[in-house]
């Protein structure tokens, strides 16, 4: 019953992603109507709190009520003006000026303005608990300029933060939020936003969203009503979806071809685009993981394809050692370098690397150094993620062949994350707990830039393995200081080079956005051919963009 949807749930708590809207779907204006039901295991019943800053419920209000300044498609980095009509970086890339859209109204009829944007950011500065994206770690000032401009000033150029600032921050109305005594603990049961839907009704078991008739994008949305039922477990949610009672799914379904597709072959579809990596983290402060050769040996000692097939039933593709997601970020991948290193299962090569590092096989077939320390390790992971356990079994079998003895230790999620964040592990298996972004930069930076790390015992927001390489840190800074795409590509190639040569972390498989849909009564879905938005209902704020594209088919 436990599954990886739990992880998706966790991610969705702060998760956001993005979307490009300006598309394609409707040459003929579709008629307004239809009731769409979302099917996504939330693991809880609804509290009817629509505070977008409460990590546990942000996925129920971000986008659909509270919109971002710009949509930035998580899958393609394509940016679409939203509450801001345009934006402009100063020549030295330390000032970002947004021009705010005019004529937008809050759902209570009050006009939306640049003041609301400034208020939203100032409030996050005043209450750091609201700053889920840590935007104030790079911002120094946010102020209004003229009537419709907002200027954001950065301590140093931090261009990739555009994604967090423009796409991930939900703009809230000043005239409502300024009345709250403490927005961090405020229960918002009557949300007022600029988004395409307004709250119809909320009970513990279902939220009904009704069409916002005065939405600023004329004619949209096409759907009259959206239902979002609360599912406490995966199985009931999957049955509900398979029975056709919901049209938009966002979760793991075991044997999806028989359990879902076969129930209605003409209309049921699924697509699982990769959005992050599932990694083996080395604690590089502990021997022998401070040795590059040992880490490389691990990378040659794991058969990623077989982990993907046996552990993840093929739903989650094998990762590659650069950490660049494929096919999502194919344009960033340095194919030549990947070929040069050729990281695939190669027991002979792994063994010779270990021997070169001074290890020899002892009588029981385990590698040991001259003083008798064996390569026996414990790898921690999250209890209940059965697919990860299966993957780790494959990994342990692989590593056995190169003389490494691996013991898997399942920990409850609190213990696991605490150990991961504070560096209390030899090896850990799992993905970043920070959000992925629309280019490989975001995940790679949080994985190996030592700025995101912390001393052993302190809470690190990234680089859990405490990998320290000042050259690569500088590369991340350089990437963050340029808007020139060609230059960014060439910097990222150098970072990929470090991933391949140094193996600070091993991306084993690629985590995906679970997404199932039925074309029986609705059209306009994102597909591999038209990936206009990250497609899972827990991809925020992308789900808003998907909801704006969907329309009722037939009568």
């Amino acid at each position, binding site marked *: 019953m436990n599954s990886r949807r739990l992880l998706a749930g966790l991610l969705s708590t702060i998760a956001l992603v993005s979307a490009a809207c300006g598309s394609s779907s409707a040459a003929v204006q579709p008629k307004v109507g239809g009731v769409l039901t979302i099917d996504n295991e939330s693991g809880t*019943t609804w509290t009817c709190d629509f505070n977008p800053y409460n990590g546990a419920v942000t996925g129920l209000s971000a986008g659909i009520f509270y919109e971002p300044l710009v949509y930035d498609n998580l899958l393609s980095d394509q940016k679409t003006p939203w509450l801001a009509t345009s934006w402009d970086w100063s020549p030295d890339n330390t000032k970002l000026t947004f021009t705010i859209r005019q004529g937008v109204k809050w759902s209570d009829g009050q006009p939306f303005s640049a003041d609301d944007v400034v208020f939203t950011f100032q409030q996050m500065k005043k209450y750091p608990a609201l700053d889920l994206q*840590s935007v104030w770690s790079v911002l120094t000032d946010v102020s209004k300029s003229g009537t419709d401009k907002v200027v954001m000033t950065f301590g140093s150029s931090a261009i990739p933060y555009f994604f967090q600032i423009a796409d991930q921050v939900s703009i809230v109305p000043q005239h409502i939020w300024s009345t709250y005594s403490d927005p961090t603990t405020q229960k918002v049961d009557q949300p007022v936003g600029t988004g395409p839907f307004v709250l119809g009704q909320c009970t513990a078991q279902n939220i*009904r969203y009704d069409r916002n008739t005065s939405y600023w994008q004329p004619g949209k949305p096409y759907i009259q009503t959206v239902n979002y039922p609360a599912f406490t*477990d995966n199985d009931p949610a999957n049955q509900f979806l398979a029975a056709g009672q919901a049209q938009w799914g966002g979760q793991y379904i075991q044997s999806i071809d028989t359990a879902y597709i076969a129930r209605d072959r003409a209309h049921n579809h699924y697509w699982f685009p990769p959005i992050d990596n599932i990694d083996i983290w080395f604690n590089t402060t502990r021997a022998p993981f401070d040795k590059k050769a040992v880490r490389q040996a691990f990378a040659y000692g794991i058969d990623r394809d077989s982990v993907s097939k046996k552990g993840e039933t093929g739903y989650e593709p094998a990762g590659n050692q650069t950490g660049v997601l494929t096919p999502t970020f194919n344009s960033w991948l340095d194919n030549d370098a990947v070929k040069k290193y050729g990281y695939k299962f190669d027991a002979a090569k792994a063994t010779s690397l270990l021997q070169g590092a001074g290890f020899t096989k002892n009588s029981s077939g385990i590698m040991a150094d001259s003083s008798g320390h064996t390569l026996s390790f414990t790898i921690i992971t999250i209890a209940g993620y059965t697919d990860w356990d299966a993957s780790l079994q494959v990994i342990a079998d692989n590593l056995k062949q190169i003389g490494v003895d691996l013991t898997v230790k399942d920990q409850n999620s609190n213990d696991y994350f*605490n150990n991961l964040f504070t560096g209390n592990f030899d090896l850990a298996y799992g993905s970043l707990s920070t959000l992925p972004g629309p280019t490989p930069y975001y995940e790679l930076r949080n994985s190996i830039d030592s700025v995101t790390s912390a001393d052993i015992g302190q809470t690190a927001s990234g680089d859990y393995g405490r990998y320290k390489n000042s050259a690569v840190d500088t590369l991340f800074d350089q990437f963050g200081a340029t808007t020139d795409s060609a230059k960014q590509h060439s910097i990222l190639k150098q970072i990929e080079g470090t991933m391949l040569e140094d193996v600070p972390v091993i991306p084993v498989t690629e985590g995906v956005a679970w997404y199932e849909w039925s074309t029986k009564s609705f059209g306009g879905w994102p597909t591999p051919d038209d990936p206009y938005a990250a497609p899972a209902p827990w991809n925020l704020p992308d789900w808003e963009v998907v909801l704006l594209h969907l329309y009722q088919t037939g009568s």
Partner: protein
Amino acid sequence: MWYLVRRLEFFIVTLWAALTVNFLLPRLMPGSPAEALLVRFHGHVSPQAVKAMEVALGIHTDQSVVQQYLEYIGNTLRGELGVSVSYFPLSVATVVMQALPWTVGLVGTATVIAFVLGTLIGMLAAWRRGGLFDAILPPVFIVISAFPYFWIALFCLLIFSLTLNWFPLGFAYDLTSQINLSWDFVGQVIAHAFLPALTIVITSIGGWILTMRNTMITTLAEDYVKMARAKGLSPMRIMFMYAGRNAILPNLTGFAMSLGFVISGAILVEIVFNYPGLGFMLLQAVDNEDFALMQALFLMITLAVLVAVLFADVLTAVLDPRTREAG
């Protein structure tokens, strides 16, 4: 009279002990709510912000255990149960009151039905020992009650909801309905509760049948039953008023206990049927190290069991004059 006073003393001492264990137990678990909070925010939040959240949630990690204990007892007596971490920012009372009616309605009704039916079947089976009724029903239900709860639940769901479409799939009432007192809504509630209730009844009825049948057989061999027969009383009167009334006594305490445990919900049934009850809430509270919610739920379970047992004691005193005199 002394009998009841003694029971009341016992009730108060047990309640205090339960309150204390309830306070200690969550604190003996590994991890802390502060860590849980940190994980919720994925390490994005500064330690200062976490401190602020802790204060908002009423977690005072810097207080001594004795201080926390006194504060806990005081708050509990005043009915202040705190704020739930897993349902933040809702108060524990709000969260519990949302789920309580569903659990009491579903599990309570199912438990009463299972007890009444089970007792009747057990009584009849013993009355006509060796008959066709006795040969079929008790063994069948006892075998069924050995099946795992969730297996029966999944089976019912698959047959009656997914395949035959007789009953709705999951939830306590139709998705888009609002809670109200119309006949239509009552109908929805019954339709949604039918399968989960059926599961509970058929998996728990076996125990009642078995104990009732066995004590009934012993009772039927008693002299006063023979005497009643000799007097020529009607079989019905003998079965209910002579044999049944005495045979039910041991079952009564068991029934009271299970009524108390109704509050703890039926975790697996609630999960399989996606039913918004307390059982699932308890599981979630433990998962999230939601101390306040956990304590409130444990407290309610303890209280409910204690009250039910006290009630059973009183009832026993009414049904069985011997207990009154023995005191």
